[in-house]
């Protein structure tokens, strides 16, 4: 099945979805989908009997700065039953890039979406755990964006140990004993 037939099968499942088949240099089927309906389209791709894309192999993003729309979110899907592969792509604008999560369809998307948020700053609405994944939680900026510098120097952040007098220390120990009892 090539892009056009998959797109046709998808249109049968979601009649008014504006999906657009595309060509790729590696012969992989590619479909562009609108960002607003991604969760619905994802569910249809997983559940439609002639598609059955049950395996989310990869979820990532590409930054095409300075082009607009700037980002593309890419879902690499595999249908093990039908032996199909598909790249589902969503274009997103440079300002306020966000789309809804697909964790309800493929639970594996949880960490993959967190990684995209962490490295590209693309927000996933309705994500169950929208935290950074790889970078420290207090990190500034999104490293894989093209306008993020390759080498930056950050002062090491250190925290002073809590300073208490001997008196306060005894009181704390005493208080802890009372609460634990």
């Amino acid at each position, binding site marked *: 099945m090539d892009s056009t037939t998959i797109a046709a099968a998808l249109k049968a499942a979601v009649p008014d979805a504006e999906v657009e088949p595309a060509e790729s*240099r590696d012969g992989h089927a590619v479909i562009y989908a609108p960002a607003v309906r991604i969760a619905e389209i994802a569910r249809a791709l997983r559940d439609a009997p002639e598609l059955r894309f049950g395996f989310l*192999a990869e979820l*990532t993003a590409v930054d095409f700065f300075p082009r607009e729309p700037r980002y593309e979110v890419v879902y*690499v899907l595999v249908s093990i039953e039908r032996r199909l592969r598909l790249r589902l792509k969503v274009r997103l604008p440079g300002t306020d890039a966000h789309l809804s999560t697909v964790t309800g369809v*493929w639970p594996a998307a949880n*960490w993959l979406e967190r990684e995209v948020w962490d490295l590209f700053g693309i927000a996933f609405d309705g994500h169950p755990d929208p935290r950074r994944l790889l970078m420290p939680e207090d990190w500034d900026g999104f*490293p894989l964006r093209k306008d993020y510098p*390759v080498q930056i120097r950050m002062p090491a952040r250190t925290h002073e140990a809590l300073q208490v007098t001997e008196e306060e220390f005894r009181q704390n120990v005493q208080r802890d004993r009372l609460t634990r009892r």
Partner: protein
Amino acid sequence: MPELRSETMTVNMGPQHPSTHGVLRLVLELDGEIIRSLAPTIGYLHTGIEKTAEQKKWQQVIPLVERMDYLSAQSNSLAFCLSVERLLGIEVPERVRLIRILLAELQRINSHLVWLGTHGMEVGAVSVMLYCFRERELLLNINELIAGFRLFPSYMRIGGLREDLPRGFHDAVRAFLDRFPGKLDEYEDLLTKNEIYLERTRGVGRISKENALALSLVGPIGRAAGVDYDVRKAFPYLGYESFDFAVPVRTEGDVYARYLVRVAEMRESLKICRQALDRITPTGAFAIDDPRITPPPKDRVYTEMEALIQHFLIYSQGFTVPAGEAYVPVEGPRGEQGFYVVADGTNRPWRVKSRAPSLLACQALEHMVVGGLIADVIAVIGSIDVVMGDVDR
């Protein structure tokens, strides 16, 4: 009579722990010995390899990708080369394909040996580790023979291989292939019917087929749970369809099933290696004949002006890759392994994204251990075979 107190205890396991295979931190909530919740914290080894790759020329990315999943270096570079070659629209010679298959399968055995050794040690069978590392040494010697580097040979290049096979390669591989089946029986004697090992692993860390697929667990973990998916069979590459081998699948989905699947996979890999080795001629083409991509042989560089110019251009500017994107997966030791590569028509990649099977395995850890005993966490982490370099990249 005073009321019995019951409260949960939060325990930090890692980031420095001998059985976490790198730097993985788990925050466990315990009720006695039972695990109520588990929260992995990753990112300690994040080195921004994908960002670094965008600054390098295409051929220079290969050493980087080999260091991501440091136990399956040659599978990583193979997947990267296949994606870029697809973008370039080139086909490597038949002999190169066979050598790549042979090296990828030896890499799989290598990776599984490290897994078996460390996993055995963690559940109390220390001798297995010594046995496995003894045979792994032979594989590292083969790497040293072909490239002079034992862990990260960078032998696979875009367009073929770095150089031709050295003298003695066939003998070294043949010696390993003859020796290994007996040794594999030895490992199985130590574990497969060992009552202590069975107690530690059977029914532990179980995951169902549906959950495995929903959490994108393919590779040995998925196949141990019944997900019958192997890239070599489902979407053959490099001519795997002409090889005779089976894909072991089990349905139990526990730690023991993963052990059985991986041991059976090593036997199948041996079969592929034998078939490939018989078809590889000692000398012949080792790269495509394209002066833009393959550097000229050294003796011509020293004697011919044209060759010198070509050599200089390849090493100073690299080659350009037509704009586009490609994703050609291979079956690595941990499951589908691929590189989503985007090119903008210059001599450097626009984006390189590695599909990290270990990241997904790490994510699924929670589903395997919650409700089990704390001692089983060690067995389960061992069985999913995570490489933290691949998780964090």
